[in-house]
């Protein structure tokens, strides 16, 4: 068996990344686990256990890598952006991508990525970092490397496509872009400095733009757009209707740069270099360098990098005269991409690219050996070529059909047939495209020959795709193809990969079938008896032209689904209402109604008196849809839940409290209110009420700290007065506790005095005076107790000092009179 250590490593690493995606685990614990596992490896090098330790270490490393990649620095712009939503912000930064001009409702939109350097806060310019996407709604003359200042509105990316699983926000997040800045057509943009670019990247962008211009010069707009996608990996220019045709026929993969492109490119480069009589090793090294340059030019997309790494590994093997293993080089490519960006594992392009190549490498030889056993002669060339193409096309399709169904909600059986025609066209187009660019750059005048050939073949290919797209039953839109369905599909797929097809052939023969027919009949009978209640897995609905899974079916639009869920809510069928609201969120996560559904889940739970769960549901509105119009309502709802908790509602029973601990829901709720709207009208009262809650719990020092926060963080709030009063009260309560401290009592008295002085008209002032007299009384009593203690110890002089201090400091009080009596008694005692 071929030795493939990298395959195991990349699988463990990838599993680690997935683990981090679904389960959050503290970074330090993971780092510690990683250290322990690596030490375990060292101590078990001589036995087989070390392999397990190594794979577990890579699993942990995958999780750590994912966590460290996603951790934002403290001064990241995202951390501050939420406080400026709906308000214009000023920024300074450097353009770090190619500047693109896109069509936007008949006008030009300038789009680029900006590395933020400075951000204008309420307190002036502050250093900030992070990458954002900028849309300037006019034709702005900017280029890569410009340092600019601009003003616009920041917002989180919207999700445009509510039908597929494509998540624009997640897509940008994987590129570390969390925010978009929108600059109006008359908005402020100023170039501060130029030439702050990376020279290599600048050169590649310049070459790319020159090649794009060359396509635009000789081809129509749509044709140029498709060729740019083929050769330069830039898909922006593909006409939407053409893209839709390729999606419907399952041939969209050819609109991206793939291994085939890299293979042809490597072949052409190798050939051209051989014409110059360069030695073989030199040719290999030069080809590698040119391929790296090409990958850079194509924007470093996953399929390009994957194919380039595989080609480099192959060429290295050629240099070192060692045979290379395709699966190992595929695993190396995956590992490099995942270390550079662990989130690319969740990218549809990454998954489709690696899975299809993996399946082709593993399955094609098996399928081919299976086919060779059949009676037809596949050794003749034209038949062999078509059979091989059909096998590769089918295997690639079977391997990705589950993912395509999940991500794009489409099932395209026509794909196998369409690919047989489209892939050869694409191969010719690639060769023509490379020739066109080479001739176009050097001998501009004869490039038209290539351009005309490209035009004819490209249009022919699109025509073929159009015909396939019209075939009835060629493609179906699937609805509700869920994750579990995808997993089941791939379990079956893996089963087929790991069970040799040859064994399967042996199994399917008449004798075996004859032996097993009784068992099969029993199985079928049992299956039929118990299947009467089962749902059809998918039901074809001609009205909607879709296959629908009834178990998970939702209404046709989010609006209808919301109305449907509301019917249950109004009928007070809360569990069903929650279920239907959840369905809406699951199936239309990007629809406007999704936020509303989440909000109604909160209301439903609140109606059921499940207050903490309601708070959690409300909080999801803010977490998942931070720019929703419902934010203000959610904050108000959360605040009211906090108040209800404070009033004693929703308390856990004694047993529950003992089992799940803590009654700190109140604090969590009020803290969330403060975090969600730190400058909102509910922030100060929430802060105040955290103090009240802690005070009620007898945690006086903690309560005092919270009240102080009200005074410091919200100095202009009406709650400051109450907070000051509560601080004095907390101090007085501390002073009356078991551990009496005169200093605290004095502080409490001073605080009450200050309060009464500052707010003489306040209702609480009268109470403050009352507390002052009570505290003084307490102080007097305490001094009296001390004096009495000394008297009992027969230290009369010390007792006299304390009695006198009570008479002097608290004249006219009950304790002063009592002290006078005690002094008289002392006098009489001493005379005796």
């Amino acid at each position: 068996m071929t030795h493939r250590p990298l395959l195991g490593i990349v699988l463990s690493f990838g599993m680690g990344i997935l683990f981090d995606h679904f389960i959050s685990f503290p970074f330090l614990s993971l780092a510690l686990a990683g250290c322990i596992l690596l030490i375990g490896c060292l101590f078990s090098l001589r036995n087989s256990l070390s392999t397990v330790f190594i794979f577990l270490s890579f699993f942990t490393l995958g999780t750590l890598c994912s966590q460290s990649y996603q951790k934002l620095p403290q001064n990241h712009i995202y951390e501050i952006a939420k406080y400026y939503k709906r308000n214009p912000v000023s920024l300074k930064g450097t353009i770090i991508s190619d500047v693109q001009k896109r069509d936007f409702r008949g006008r030009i939109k300038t789009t680029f990525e900006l590395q933020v350097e400075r951000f204008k806060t309420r307190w002036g310019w502050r250093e900030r970092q992070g990458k954002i996407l900028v849309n300037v709604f006019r034709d702005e003359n900017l280029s890569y490397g410009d340092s600019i200042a601009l003003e616009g509105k920041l917002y989180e990316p919207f999700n445009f496509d509510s039908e597929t699983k494509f998540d624009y926000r997640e897509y940008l997040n994987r590129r570390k872009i969390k925010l978009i800045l929108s600059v109006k057509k008359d908005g402020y943009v100023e170039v501060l400095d130029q030439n702050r670019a990376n020279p290599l990247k600048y050169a590649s962008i310049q070459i790319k733009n020159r090649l794009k211009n060359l396509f635009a010069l000789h081809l129509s707009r749509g044709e140029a757009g498709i060729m740019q996608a083929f050769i330069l990996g830039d898909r922006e220019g593909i006409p939407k209707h053409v893209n839709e045709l390729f999606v419907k026929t399952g041939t969209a993969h050819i609109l991206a740069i793939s291994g085939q492109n890299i293979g042809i490119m490597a072949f052409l480069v190798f050939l051209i270099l051989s014409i110059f009589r360069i030695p073989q090793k030199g040719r290999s090294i030069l080809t590698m360098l040119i391929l790296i340059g090409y990958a850079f030019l194509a924007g470093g997309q996953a399929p390009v990098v994957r194919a380039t790494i595989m080609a480099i590994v192959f060429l290295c093997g050629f240099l070192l005269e060692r045979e290379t293993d395709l699966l190992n080089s595929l695993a190396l490519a995956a590992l490099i991409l995942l270390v550079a960006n662990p989130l690319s594992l969740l990218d549809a392009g990454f998954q489709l690219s690696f899975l299809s190549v993996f399946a082709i490498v593993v399955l094609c030889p098996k399928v081919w050996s299976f086919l060779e056993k059949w009676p037809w002669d596949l050794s003749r060339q034209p038949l062999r070529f078509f059979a091989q193409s059909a096998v590769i096309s089918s295997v690639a399709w079977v391997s990705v059909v589950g993912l395509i169904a999940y991500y794009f909600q489409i099932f395209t059986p026509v794909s196998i047939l369409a690919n047989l025609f489209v892939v050869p066209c694409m191969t010719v187009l690639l060769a023509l495209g490379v020739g066109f660019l080479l001739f176009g750059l050097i001998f501009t005048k004869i490039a038209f020959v290539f351009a005309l050939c490209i035009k004819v073949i490209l249009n022919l290919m699109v025509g073929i795709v159009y015909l396939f797209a019209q075939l009835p039953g060629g493609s179906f839109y699937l609805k509700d193809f869920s994750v579990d369905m995808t997993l089941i599909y791939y379990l079956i797929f893996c089963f087929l990969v790991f069970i040799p097809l040859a064994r399967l052939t042996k199994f399917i023969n008449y004798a075996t079938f004859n032996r097993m027919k009784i068992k099969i009949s029993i199985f079928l009978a049992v299956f039929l008896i118990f299947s009467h209640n089962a749902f059809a897995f998918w039901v074809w609905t001609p009205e909607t032209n879709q296959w629908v899974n009834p178990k998970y079916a939702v209404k046709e639009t989010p609006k209808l689904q919301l109305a449907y869920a509301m019917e249950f809510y109004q009928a007070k069928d809360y569990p069903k209402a929650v279920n239907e609201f959840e369905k809406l969120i699951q199936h239309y996560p990007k629809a406007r109604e999704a936020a509303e559904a989440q909000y109604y889940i909160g209301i439903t739970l609140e109606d059921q008196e499940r207050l903490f769960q309601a708070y959690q549901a409300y909080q999801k509105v803010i977490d998942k849809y931070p720019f929703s119009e419902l934010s203000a309502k959610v904050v108000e709802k959360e605040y009211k839940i906090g108040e209800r908790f404070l009033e004693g509602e929703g308390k856990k029973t004694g047993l529950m409290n003992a089992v799940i601990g803590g009654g700190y829901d109140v604090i969590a709720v009020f803290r969330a209110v403060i975090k969600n709207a730190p400058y909102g009208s509910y922030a100060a009262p929430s802060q105040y009420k955290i103090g009240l809650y802690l005070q009620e719990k007898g945690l006086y020092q903690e309560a005092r700290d919270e009240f102080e926060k009200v005074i410091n963080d919200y100095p202009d709030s009406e709650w400051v007065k109450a907070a000051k009063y509560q601080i004095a009260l907390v101090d007085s309560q501390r002073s009356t506790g078991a551990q009496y401290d005169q200093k605290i009592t004095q502080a409490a008295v001073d605080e009450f005095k200050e309060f009464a002085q500052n707010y003489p008209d306040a209702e609480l002032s009268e109470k403050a005076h009352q507390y002052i007299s009570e505290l003084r009384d307490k102080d007097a009593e305490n001094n009296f107790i001390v004096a009495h203690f000394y008297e009992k110890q027969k230290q009369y002089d010390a007792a006299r000092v304390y009695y006198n201090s009570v008479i002097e400091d608290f004249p006219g009080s009950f304790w002063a009179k009592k002290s006078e009596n005690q002094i008289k008694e002392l006098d009489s005692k001493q005379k005796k």
Partner: protein
Amino acid sequence: MFNLTRQEKIVLIFLGVTFLIGFCLHYTFKINPRAYQVVHLIDSEKVYSKIDLNKASYAELVRLPEIGPAIAQRILDYRQENGLFADLNEIKTIKGISQAKYQRLVKFLKVNPAS
């Protein structure tokens, strides 16, 4: 001196065929501009997958370039309230579909009143 490897021969044949076809096409398009229009599929309306406005589901409508969830919903509401579309022009009565948008949208739609 004129010895060529197999790969070199393939490249030269490929270049020869390309030039031959290229010159022929150049000549044909010059003498017959209509031939150019026949080839010109991508930027024409010939390869648009038109959907029937009277049958289109919400999912199909939102896949169209000019239609978002709100307009898709309005089209469905309109169909429910007023019956099937008799003419494509009727879509202009729906809020959010201006003349300019209609012009951009019309190539993706068809109306079959019998449906």
